């Protein structure tokens, strides 16, 4: 198995399945869902194999696949732009998360019997391919190319199965993905990811993350995709996109910005505070979750921007917590919205009685999202606070303030939905179904495992976080 293209195979599974599902004739339409589900589960199983073979304590990327893509660059024409995939501490948790969340979510969100089922399955698998490819990329331009690959699946999923404002939401989501992709591709070509990257490369990288992750002031598309999009993109937006963005920032942008980290730190904390305040004011369940995710993602960016090993490790751990908590909250919110016919917080209340499992899951996922003890985010937040401490007590106070506002927002949301008087209509709502419970159970087990034994993850993340930045170009 040594030297085998493990990561290429990981990417090939969803990609080939997407093509097969899209090309399958109408006469064999019934095969689409089984093929897509099988491919998603096979990808998950393959990712588990790769993650288990991943060697802890090694900072350098493992299972590296590399190829020259564009030769003859540079002042002397001797530089090669490479395409490299690899698994390291920055992406090991992200790969597992993306590969396992996709089949779990597909269990819940597939439009069985829909006339345009072909598009759904192909787009969902293409989205998984794009996300896996992006986090596995060791080159900023390749990262950008994979992010670009997510734009049109996102457009189709939101645009076909979204809510009332689906066309606007679809356009915005795809546009932001493409802006992020082009910014990253251009940043890679002008040296992002190398130690000597200039201001232009850093600026383009930051724009790429802000557009795709996304962060204020470009966060509205993300909120739109979460509130107007179908279940699949709601989970994508709240769990996977922020994770991909944080990995991209931590791997490519953070190592390049030694001189400008205070500015980025200030911008990220400002973005986190703003998003947390928006979460506090949210009137809609998915908007609450989306803004909370944005605020936490910005805090992860804060950790990465400190430039220290602790900060970068914390960023990846916190992003993992966001992924698990965000996915769970999005699924519970989805179930609530489907049962109540609306996501407005004012229409809920007192659901802890008729829906105790949903209430428990909501509380558990919200705790994971705000990085309470017992969740993987807690260790991440702790590491970030430690790293931010090097910049002064004011910065620590600001980070704590963001977390406090965010916790208040989620507690307020929980109270509005689950506590208080229960109307007669709400009293008739049915609790989570078996398939929802299964997904919730799996996510909670993952949260507990990583939250109670964070060293398992830290041992794999920290060596890479302390390693030298990845170079995006090689000389012939």
């Amino acid at each position: 198995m040594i030297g085998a293209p493990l990561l290429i195979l990981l990417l090939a599974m969803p990609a080939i399945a997407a093509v097969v599902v899209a090309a399958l004739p109408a006469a064999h339409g019934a095969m689409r869902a089984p093929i897509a589900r099988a491919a998603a589960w096979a990808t998950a199983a393959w990712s588990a194999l790769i993650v288990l073979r991943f060697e802890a304590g090694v900072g350098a990327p493992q299972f590296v696949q590399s190829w020259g893509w564009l030769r003859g660059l540079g002042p002397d024409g001797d530089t090669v732009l490479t395409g490299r995939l690899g698994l390291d501490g920055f992406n090991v948790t992200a790969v597992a998360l993306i590969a396992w969340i996709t089949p779990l979510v597909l269990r819940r969100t597939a439009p069985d019997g829909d006339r345009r089922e072909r598009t759904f399955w192909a787009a969902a698998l293409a989205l998984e391919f794009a996300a896996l490819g992006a986090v596995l990329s060791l080159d900023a331009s390749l990262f950008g190319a994979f992010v670009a690959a997510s734009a049109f699946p996102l457009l189709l999923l939101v645009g076909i199965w979204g809510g009332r404002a689906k066309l606007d939401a679809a356009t915005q989501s795809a546009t932001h993905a493409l802006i992020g992709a082009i910014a990253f591709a251009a940043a890679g070509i002008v040296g992002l990811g190398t130690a000597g990257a200039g201001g232009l490369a850093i600026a383009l990288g930051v724009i790429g993350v802000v557009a795709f992750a996304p962060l204020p002031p470009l966060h509205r598309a993300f909120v739109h995709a979460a509130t107007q999009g179908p279940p699949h993109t709601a989970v994508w937006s709240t769990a996977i996109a922020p994770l991909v963005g944080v990995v991209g920032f931590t791997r490519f942008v953070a190592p390049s910005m030694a001189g400008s980290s205070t500015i980025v730190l200030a911008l990220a904390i400002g973005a986190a505070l703003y998003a947390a305040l928006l979460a506090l004011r949210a009137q809609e369940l998915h908007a609450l979750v989306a803004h909370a995710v944005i605020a936490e993602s910005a805090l992860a960016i804060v950790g990465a921007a400190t430039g220290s090993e602790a900060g970068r490790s914390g960023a990846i751990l916190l992003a993992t917590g966001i992924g698990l908590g965000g996915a769970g909250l999005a699924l519970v919110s989805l179930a609530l919205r489907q049962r109540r016919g609306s996501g407005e917080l004012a229409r809920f209340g007192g659901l802890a009685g008729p829906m105790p499992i949903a209430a428990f899951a909501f509380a558990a996922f919200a705790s994971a999202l705000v990085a309470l003890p017992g969740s993987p985010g807690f260790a991440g937040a702790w590491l970030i606070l430690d790293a931010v401490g090097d910049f002064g007590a004011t910065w620590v106070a600001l980070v704590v303030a963001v977390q406090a506002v965010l916790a208040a927002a989620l507690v307020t949301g929980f109270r509005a939905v689950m506590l208080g008087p229960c109307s007669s209509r709400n009293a008739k709502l049915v609790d989570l179904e078996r398939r929802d419970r299964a997904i919730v159970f799996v996510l909670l087990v993952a949260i507990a495992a990583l939250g109670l034994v964070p060293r398992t993850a830290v041992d794999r993340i920290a060596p890479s976080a302390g390693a030298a930045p990845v170079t995006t170009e090689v000389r012939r």
Partner: protein
Amino acid sequence: MSAILPTPSALECALPFAVVAATAITTVLSRRPRIIAATGLLAGALAAWALAGRGPVVVHGTWFVDDLGVLSGCVALLALAASVVLGGCRAPAALASLVVAGLGAWTASVAHDLLVLLGGLTITHLGLVGAGHRADRDRALAAGRHAILGAALLATAWVGAAFLIAGTGSTAIAADVEQATLWGRAGATVIALALAGLVGAVPLHAWLGHGARAARPTALGATLAVMPLAALVPLLRVLASPTAHHAAPALPTTLAAIAALSLVFGALINVVAVSARAWLASACVVHAGIALGALAIRPVGGAEAATFHAIAFATAAIASAAMLRVVGRDPLATLHGLGRAHPLRATALAFSFAAAIGAPGTAAFPARLAVLRALHDGGAGWLVAIAVLATVVPLVGLVVLVRDLFLVPPSNQWDDPPAGACWIAGIALALVATIGFWPDAAFDTVRAACRALHATALR
């Protein structure tokens, strides 16, 4: 390759010219003008390709056959052949006119002499104008404007040539000068600006929009692909020549400013374009900005990137024109819902448009990355930022177009596409995707062609 193959004789160098010229005459007289024109152009391209790797050689002080000229001439001839195969035009005169444009493009690509170069470009312009549509008043007016604006640019170039010849005492493009005279400086600047206009740069780009509007379906791809490419290679030769270096030191800065203007303007008009032709014309303006920026800031390394971009854009323009012929509609609003009725056609159309604006996964994307890198290495970070912006803005338009293609209910019936257009679209899109994902072979070819130019021809 050049070490093994013999230097081409004057007769061999003249063969592509002779084949295309004979094709033009035969096309007018033939009862099957499409077949004759397409076959003749293809034969001309093959005859031209036979010269690849055998130069550079100067023939009679008039022709300069090097790999860059051969490559650019071949691409132009193949683009014209593809345009003829697209169909939509049976008039022998119009098809012969396209062949004549090929004659001019080949001449301009391998010209060693300023007068021959400008003669070639003039013939190209006349050929493209001759292939235009005059079915209604609007198109006739657009064709007239295309003719006049293009002629004005060419006349400017002729005046510049007169200045340059007076200043250097030589008609050679690559005439060496020790000292810059006023005439020489003015001449080099005027020629470079006129050629930049023919590539499609703002503010001299107006011919492009009118040309795209006036072109028959057959000639649309040719109009957008051939003239910008045919003008870019001579511009490259002029800028790389000692004449330009000595005579007009401020020229690179001027061209960089024009490039920035073209990028911004092209991106903005792309967003407000309501027809596919306007979309493609605006993409051509952006392309001109990208290419000129690379040439202006870093003439040696940038030349490779700019030429690569020009060839990628030419392929994309042919693919887009073919797809427009396949769908048979021009206003973007009439394309709504195509994806629901014909997903494959809509996907191909969107991909061809994506190629025209340099989206990831298409041939122009690696070309654009190479240009960005050349600009960055040349110290033009500000132009990199503008180029990125000019890439992103049309992508927003592309997202809206894809949304309308696939997510809006169809309101029209769609005719069966012509077979020729389907074939050309398929081949061009396959090329676009292949170069987009595996750009090195194409880029190596372009690089080798450009390096030969710089290493041996002009020193």
